[in-house]
């Protein structure tokens, strides 16, 4: 019983809630976070797309090393890295298992391995960029790139409203628990408990939808009284919103260093074969 309850405590809604908040808001003050968001987006546009079309193993390895370094620089939350790793490794293992049935063997894993490396480079690039970018700065960067102001508002609003929503969800979830009845036994492989919790998880959205409707009405009403629609008619406002962003030496330095590194890796790739 004790072990069970300690596991339960570890994986309680409270725990997940805290972990999520920590991930979402604990960006900290890293070198990358201080860069101009647009610089990071340009950087990402290369490292997020180019690997798809690179088949040279040396270059891919070089890029992977670089991405690991930037991910460390971004001080990404371990939770995210774990999710990423289990996802990637799980997939490759499963694929290996299946391909055994089709007469394949270890050799079928190899090309998949390089695909995984590719995916890892791409995922790490996005983790680097988007976990170190302040959400609002990202929104403003998108605004400066011409997306509608609703998008950039929504991003910022998402960050503002998440804790409130979680709190409310948690309370409702507890309402179901405190007034409901957990299954007497956990069942084989905990299936009864899993079904019990999944069911609560789903039905919790009934009150949440209704409460959310009330809430979003006030939100939109407040948007109106705060002149948000007024801003949409005025291009001057948009300029003011993004005026704080500017390229500094550190931005040019970061992009140049990345560029030089890529040049070296490509050169290595043409010389050394793995």
């Amino acid at each position, binding site marked *: *019983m*004790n072990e069970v*309850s300690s596991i*339960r*405590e570890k994986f309680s809604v*409270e725990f997940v809630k*805290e972990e999520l*908040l*920590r991930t979402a*808001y*604990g960006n900290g003050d890293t070198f990358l976070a201080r860069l101009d968001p647009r610089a990071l987006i340009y950087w990402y546009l290369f490292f997020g797309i180019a690997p798809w079309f690179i088949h040279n193993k040396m270059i891919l390895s070089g890029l992977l090393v670089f991405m690991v370094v930037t991910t460390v620089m971004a001080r990404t939350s371990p939770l995210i890295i774990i999710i990423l790793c289990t996802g990637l490794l799980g997939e490759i293992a499963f694929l290996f298992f299946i391909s055994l049935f089709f007469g394949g063997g270890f050799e079928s894993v190899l090309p998949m391995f390089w695909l995984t490396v590719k995916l890892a480079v791409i995922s790490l690039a996005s983790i680097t960029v988007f976990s170190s970018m302040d*959400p*609002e700065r990202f929104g403003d960067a998108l605004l400066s790139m011409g997306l509608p102001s609703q998008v950039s*508002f929504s991003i*910022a*609003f998402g*960050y*503002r409203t*998440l*804790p*409130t929503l979680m709190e*409310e969800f948690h*309370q*409702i979830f*507890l*309402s*179901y*628990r*405190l*007034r*409901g*009845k*957990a299954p007497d036994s956990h069942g084989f492989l905990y299936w009864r408990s899993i079904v019990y919790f999944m069911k609560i998880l789903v*039905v*919790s959205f*009934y*009150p949440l939808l*209704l*409460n959310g409707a*009330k*809430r979003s009405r*006030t*939100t939109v*009403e*407040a*948007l*109106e*009284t*705060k*002149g*948000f*629609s*007024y*801003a949409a008619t*005025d291009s*001057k*406002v948009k300029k*003011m*919103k993004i005026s704080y962003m500017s390229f500094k030496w550190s931005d040019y330095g970061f992009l140049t260093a990345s560029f030089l590194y890529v040049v070296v890796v490509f050169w290595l790739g043409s010389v050394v074969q793995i």
Partner: protein
Amino acid sequence: MRSKPLIELENVTFTYPGVEVPVLTDVTLSINEGDFTAIIGGNGSGKSTLCKTFNGLIPQFYVGEFEGRVIANGLLAEDQTVAQLSKNIGYVYQDFDNQLLRPTVIDDVCFTPLNYGLQDHKERGEWALKVTGLEDLRDEFIWQLSGGQKHLLALAGALAMKPKILVIDEPIAQLDPQHAKRIYDILRNLNIEYGMTIIVIEHHTEFIANYCREVILMDKGRVLWKKTTKEALSRVAELMKHQIYPPQVTQAAQRLGIDMGKDDLYPTTLDEAITHFTQQAPSYKELRKHEPLHEEVKLRHQPIIQFQEVSLQYRTLKKTVKHALTDINISCYEGDLITLVGNNGAGKSSLIKLITGIMRPSQGDVLIQGINTRKATPEKLSDFVSYVYQKPEEMFIDDSVRKDIEYYLKARKVQDYEVLVEKLLEDFSLVDIQHQDGRLLSGGQQRRASLAIGAAMNPSIILLDEPTANLDIATKKHMVHMLNKLRKHVKLVIVATHDMQLVSEWANRVIVMNQGRIMCDGDKHTVFGNNVLMEQAGLVPPQILQLSQRLKMEVPCHTVEEFITIWDQEGANLERSIEYT
């Protein structure tokens, strides 16, 4: 009056679509520049609707049938958009949490001026933070703020436009007394220093008496009158008829016939009351001393709840440890009616959550009827404990009040649960609304429904978080009545509250908390009698109690009735002692 009208309504009538009765009927009204006006009226009298016509939300955002004219700040409202009108009219909602739209404090406060393309939006934001005293929090995330701070921020957000008119819907509904006073001090400062016209929708007449200059009374969508504060609040009988309770001192003065020299004007603030009551009873101090009343000592058997050396810490996002509770040792017994008091963030909610088993202590043990909460699931503990949340919406999980009450009973397959449900519906006056969704009810009905849901769990212990917050005073009285009914159903009630009148009228045990510690555990006499303690915990005793203390009456009076009885007694004693000499 001394200056020009800023807001003028002419024969305004408004009806929501699909509803027969208009919410506003033929309202004609003007509010002058520089006024500090309170709008009062019972629940559903149309106060908020009225204020939403000022900035065009009605009829532009809330569509419906609209007649009449609104002129705000010299502009005909129907010719302007909500956004244009809002430039000069700041509006702070009752639901302040949902009008904070940006992730950080500074960002939220600059949002409005930025939207209007004002070059000095940063300066305006900083200024608004300074006026509201939030400078230190400028870089915090919104969700890290306490309720009181959020409320101040919502105010700051409206101020940043430096509007000519500021409308605030129930500025202090969910605040502890210290925060409430702070908000009103800020409003007064804005009104005097910056000449801002301020309109509040308010139930707390004691604050109206201290801060507002004019009062508008509304009933059923009509404006009944507009008077100066003193005249308005002195009309005790009329106000009571409209479910509004004048300040306790005014009630007492009116009933004892202590006026202010002129007919029908009574003292409305504590200071005035002290002056006038003292004049009426000059030899008061020489009166015979009464023994303070003591509640009978209860027989105490086995405690129902025991906290043994309990502490609770959690890590914040910045990885620092926050001590929510420290060294809590208490026992609660059958028959206890406990109020937990202390300002926002004192640890009241944490204490309650430990009892439900939702949270477990970091150190020490919590025993509920001998069961250690570490070893039981919240589902198990809910056999004895029921927890009524502060926000009733979060308790409505089914689609009608009746089904919500049944939910627990059905889940546990209780035999003949219908009998209990019928009884509860009756007890909590819910029969007529049993098939409606809880969310669509009025504030008072929602509270009653949430109490009934709690009681349906047939608990030994019932925990209530702020059961009287956001209610008008009449509904609150009803609520206290309901709480008394609850005593029949349960062994032990614990209420976390800011409401000192609830403490003095209902509780038999008061636990004062501050910064995660228990500062005092006694009855209302020991708590209210200890000024140092009250000060430290940020509590303000009921006005009538303050009056009796300041008049040096030996028996502290906790209710207006007590005060009147004792005053009459003292008066009689006084006469008798004069006869003897």
